[in-house]
């Protein structure tokens, strides 16, 4: 392989990594919100993402959103529709199940309910993914848009040697993901809701004394958290085929990103997710395609073993 060809492959992987990474970043922000506010590890996060993908898929097919927004943009509108739908699903799951072992009720349990939460959400994950198999079928589906099969060409650069193709569909998805993260950061920083969420995260007991309904804050955090990840899933749905078991792979992707960014930090989660996207795409330069996910798992293990507080996080206890 010539140097120019390697440079081309590298830049190609780099751009693909940044675009996928931006969407991973959005997904990680959702997971991080739940952990940051509730201190709950939600194992079912990947399965809510999968639900988001199917909501986008059906919204795209059913409502014929393309009539309103044109065939090119319709998949992205469908992805945004996944947000409110999964938000409501998240509220229900929190109210009926998660709230019983978290928050004030969790602190009465052994090791503050962490194991109960982890195992409860594992059960929820099993029900969602296997129930999904029944409802959605096991055949992989995807959302097709003209954009996902067209690319911009950058170059030729460096004489005629290097040119990079940037997928248009992925670019639009990445832009929407970044805008969604910015919007969320503004919401958390500026609004009353954001303040109450941050207060509940910082010190739940003091927040209660300040008249903040911590239980409601937790419910909203769970709802927003799964909804944000579901939008990320919806954005991915237009460039990757998926099936009901897809969530599990992304649980590790998301946790790798969130741990890398420092558990509980929203900005850290976004950059963590971005990094994982880069790792995934750049790994294809040296590893066979099938081992992309193995590369992520190995990176995840290395991060938790060597730097559990994350690259951007403060030192925290590993418990």
């Amino acid at each position, binding site marked *: 392989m010539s140097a120019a060809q390697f440079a081309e492959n590298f830049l190609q992987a780099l751009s693909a990594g940044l675009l996928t990474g931006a969407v991973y970043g959005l997904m990680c922000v959702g997971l991080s919100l739940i952990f940051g506010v509730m201190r709950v590890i939600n194992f079912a996060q990947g399965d809510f993402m999968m639900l988001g993908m199917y909501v986008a898929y059906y919204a795209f097919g059913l409502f014929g959103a393309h009539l309103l927004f044109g065939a090119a943009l319709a998949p992205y509108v469908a992805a945004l529709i996944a947000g409110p739908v999964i938000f409501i699903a998240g509220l229900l799951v929190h109210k009926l199940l998660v709230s019983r072992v978290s928050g004030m009720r969790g602190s009465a349990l052994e090791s503050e309910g962490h194991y109960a939460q982890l*195992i409860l959400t594992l059960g929820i994950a099993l029900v969602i993914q*296997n129930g999904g198999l029944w409802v959605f079928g096991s055949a992989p589906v995807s959302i097709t848009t003209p954009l996902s099969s067209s690319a911009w060409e950058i170059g030729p650069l460096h004489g005629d040697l290097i040119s990079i193709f940037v997928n248009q569909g992925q670019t639009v998805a990445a832009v929407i993901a970044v805008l969604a993260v910015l919007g969320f950061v503004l919401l958390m920083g500026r609004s009353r809701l954001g303040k109450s969420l941050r207060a509940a995260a910082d010190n739940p007991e003091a927040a209660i004394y300040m008249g903040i309904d911590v239980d409601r804050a937790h419910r909203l955090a769970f709802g927003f958290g799964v909804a944000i990840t579901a939008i990320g899933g919806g954005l991915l749905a237009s460039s990757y085929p998926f099936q009901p078991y897809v969530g599990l792979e992304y649980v*590790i992707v998301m946790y790798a990103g969130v741990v890398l960014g420092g558990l509980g930090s929203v900005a850290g989660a976004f950059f963590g997710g971005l990094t994982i996207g880069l790792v995934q795409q750049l790994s294809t330069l040296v590893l066979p395609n*099938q081992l992309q*996910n193995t590369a992520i798992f190995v990176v995840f*293990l290395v991060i938790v*073993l060597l730097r559990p507080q994350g690259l951007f996080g403060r030192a925290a206890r*590993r418990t």
Partner: protein
Amino acid sequence: MKTSNRKLAGPGLAIILFGIVYAAVTGFISNSYYQLIMTVVPVWAVMGLSWNLLSGYSGLVSFGHAAFFGLGAYFVALAQIHWGLTPWIGIPLAGVLGGIAGLVVGLPTFRLRGHYFALAMLAYPLALLYVFEWLGYQELTLPMQREAPMLAMQFADHRVHAFLALALMLGAMALTSRLERARFGLSLVAIKQDEAAAEAAGINTLAWKLKAITLSGAMAGAIGGFYAVVLLVVTPPAVFGMLVSAQALIVAMFGGVGTVWGPVIGAVVLVPLSEILHARLGNVIPGIQGVVYGIAIVAVILLAPEGVFWKMKDLLFRRATKSVPTPPAAAAVPLPITARPDHAGKSVILELRNVSKAFGGLKAVQDVSFDVANGEILGIIGPNGAGKTTLFNLLNGFIVPDQGEVRFEGRDIVGDKPYRICTAGVGRTFQVVRPFRRMTVEQNVIAGAFVHAASDDAARATAREALVEVGLDRHAQRLAGGLTNKELRLLELARALAGRPKLLLLDETLAGLGGGDVEEVIAVVRKLAAKGITIVIIEHTMPAMVRLVDRFIVLDHGAVLATGLPAEVTRNEAVIDAYLGKRWRAESA
């Protein structure tokens, strides 16, 4: 967990009876589908037992037992295909491989705790899943061996498989039940309840966890190999998939962890349920098995987090916690100040030289040097935040000083693990008591007695002596969680004492005690000192301290402010300003 002397009678008999009933039922089944179910139930029971051996006793939740299971399954399949190795040898070797995998996984991963541990464990089987797909083993089929079916474990009568599975399960049960009532079980349960306290009580926590994951991996590897022989087809998702790890966890937690029966109950209930539903409804609802396991574990967490076994036991036996009435406290007669031997010039047991420790910008301990003489009672006093507890944590190895030397009996112990320092002869108690709350008083002390005990019986005898020494022998069978503050303080003393310490570090042992109780605990401390144990005690209760200790060291802002005899130190102006306060001056004037 019982620690009665009837070692095998109870559980051993029950396990044998269960085996006979299971074998008899299997013998009458002629339908080959039900025979398969009878084979698969023990397979998942063994996976549950394997998970229980690590996670149930130690409390470290594994989401990755599929890694060991899958390695075992692929090993047996590949060894038969490529080398013609019979599973009769392959399965034991798969167990060895699983054990090695456990050790390899455990060594780095035990640096983690809580959900970090669980998630890291999840990554191993998933990474292996993709590796095996990449290696081209998407579907391995074991060849039919028509000439030597016995050698290949390919029996025409599938009941033989069920009997073999049953034998493996009974073996796993016998091993578990032996281990749980021995040092292994007690040490792991202590780790589950308070890892730091276990380490300080002389339990080598890392070594026990490694033993547990090695044995656990071996069980999972062997049963994975057997599973491959039964199903004849091995695919990465079927043996490395999430459902494998989840099933191990779920049968164990459904039945109840920390007992040999839990995983068996879980498997006996859940495996047939999910298999039969899958057979009836599988073509309509393809994921029904996963749904069954998911709902089962959600229900258990919400309704009976302790699992079916413990719930039933509670309902059937209503284990009335026999509360021994606490005898009235001995009348609070202040003990006279007995003349204590002069320790000046005696041999030195502990030396600190220029010990410093900073947490970020906070210098918790700065340049502290002092000696402790053999047999003396040294009091450490100072205002809150003076660095007293940090000093103890430096002495027993919880934290390593940034600089300086700590010599115990002349040997530098800086950097030694807490359990080693405990084994060398340094015992400690905690400012906020840290008993193993779900264990009985006796078990708490036995856990501390393993340090120097050659056998379980020796540990039990040492524990009994220690309990008599502190006067808790009548409460031996009570749960530590139900003790009063004074009893908890005495329990910690007994646990430390059971390790046969030469030096005891007592951290605010009198905190929160009433007048009579203070005298009682002080009397015990004196008795220990009279036996020749050197004592370093942190305490705020000055009147008690003045009568108890031979010498004081005063810490302020992490540095030594003064040292000397009680009479000198209590008149030292700097000490009065920094710690004792004006009222002291007024009262003692």
